């Protein structure tokens, strides 16, 4: 019996039809959903309220984090004495907040109109949606961290960092943000993303390695990652070059560093590559309450929502650095008006739909009446 005949036979079998529907997923998917990249950079730790502190002024929770105290040594003569060092350890408070999905609702009768478990699909997707907001918050914090150090290094003021400024007589200091080689030499200051070069990765790593820290992990979009496949034999060597042309880049390390790549290009915008130290130099990511679901039915209306309580903080802002693959200025000065292209989109604009079926764009087009 041919495969085609087998399929036709199966379609006559009610039990097999259920299996076939499951294989076809029952619906056309719109876009890939990915786990949180923030959790890959800063592995979350579960905490409970006993580890948190409260305020006398409000009912929010924080967790106090201790920072490493400063110390030094010195040469002292036989008759000399050391400098006094009154011990003082710094602390910061890691605040907690809630990330919540939409409240989904539908009358139970209308669920019957769907041939696949739409509620279950939404339940699974909203967990990923919560992860996306986590990533958005994380991206905003790491960007704030690099820009704060960048401003400090440039006399305490936000200083435009673009190709024009770098080519000028008094270029800004690239302390925590560095431009890529192609971006640095671009003729105009724009948000156009240029391919990542091997020297760019090295320049990024040196921003950390030159400050008594060690770069441990790189974060970039898949779009920027794809440009690594354009590196030549000069960059890769013949062996890796011949492998990548067939299999792509399959190694876990890039220039000796771990990497995380993401398809969430509406959160981590293409052209932005970050380098991090190991997590114990960087910050903290706490989970106070992992994903919780609430589902209720009032008469015939079913509704459900999911939420998660997290605390996230970049405690040591010197432990993250940034590579920009575009020539324009991405500081808050927004000299070249590209900030909206290179910073995370608004929450309400995330996960925009790819399909246009709702607008009648699917083919072939038929009219049912």
């Amino acid at each position, binding site marked *: 019996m041919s495969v085609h005949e087998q399929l036709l036979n199966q379609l006559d079998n009610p039990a097999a039809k259920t299996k076939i529907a499951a294989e076809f997923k029952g619906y056309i998917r719109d876009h890939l959903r990915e786990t949180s990249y923030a959790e890959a950079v800063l592995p979350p730790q579960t905490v409970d309220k006993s580890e948190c502190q409260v*305020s*006398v*002024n*409000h*009912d*929010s*929770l*924080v967790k106090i984090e201790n920072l490493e105290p400063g110390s030094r040594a010195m040469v002292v003569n036989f008759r000399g004495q050391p400098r006094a060092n009154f011990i003082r350890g710094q602390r910061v*408070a890691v*605040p*907690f*907040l*809630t990330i919540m999905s939409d409240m989904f609702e539908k009358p139970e009768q209308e669920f019957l109109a769907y041939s696949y478990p739409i509620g279950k699909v939404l339940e699974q997707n909203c967990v990923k949606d919560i992860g996306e907001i986590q990533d958005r*918050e994380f991206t905003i914090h790491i960007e704030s961290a690099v820009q704060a150090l960048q401003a400090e290094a440039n006399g305490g003021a936000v200083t435009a960092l673009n190709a024009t400024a770098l080519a000028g007589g008094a270029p800004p200091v690239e302390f925590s943000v560095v431009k890529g080689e192609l971006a640095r030499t671009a003729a105009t200051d724009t948000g156009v993303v240029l391919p990542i070069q091997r020297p760019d990765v090295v320049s990024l790593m040196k921003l950390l390695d030159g400050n008594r820290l060690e770069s441990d992990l790189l974060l970039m979009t898949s779009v920027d990652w794809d440009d690594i496949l354009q590196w030549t034999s000069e960059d890769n060597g013949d062996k890796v070059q011949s492998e990548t042309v067939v299999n792509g880049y399959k190694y876990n390390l890039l220039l000796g560093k771990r990497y995380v790549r993401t398809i969430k290009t509406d959160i981590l915008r293409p052209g932005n590559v970050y380098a991090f130290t190991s997590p114990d130099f960087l910050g903290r990511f706490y989970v106070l309450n992992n994903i919780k679901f609430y589902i209720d039915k009032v008469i015939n209306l079913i509704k459900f929502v999911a939420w998660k309580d997290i*605390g996230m903080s970049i405690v040591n802002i010197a432990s993250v650095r940034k590579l920009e693959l575009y020539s324009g200025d991405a500081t808050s000065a927004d000299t070249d008006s590209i900030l909206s292209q290179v910073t995370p989109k608004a929450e309400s604009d995330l996960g925009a739909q790819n399909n246009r079926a709702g607008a009648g764009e699917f083919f072939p087009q038929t009219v049912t009446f």
Partner: protein
Amino acid sequence: MAIYDRQFEILRPTLDGLLMATEDVADVNLLDPTSSTVVPLIDGELLQFDATGKLVRGTTANQGQPAFFNVEWRGATEVQAGRKVTVVMGGTFLADTIVWAGAPTLGGELEMATINNARFGTVDRAGLQPQSSGLVMGYAIKLPAINGGRLQFIQALV
């Protein structure tokens, strides 16, 4: 804790009976309890949406536009971390507030205005006063003289 902190209380209904929305603020300094740049928000102040869809402190100049009551306590860390404020956007409710000024009358209409009173720190805040030309935000139900200095009102913007 200043004496004017945590002095806005919704008496009826419970919060799940109201439409509560958490929205971005235009100026995050409003959420810093120790800000010297702007007067930090307290609960009971009125906020409005600006042209970018973010919340700003209400003003007398915009009395003709809807305004919404802030329910966040000053200094709440999740508010600072998330850079958002929760406001009541719908549903009738009965509440006590210290963010009022003027001489409200029993059953009298109330409007939003920029007011200044020692009760909430002698700084300009967006609160309630007897209505003259602005949008009616509510009606006085219990006067401060018999309510421990707090004006009890029923919210009318539905």
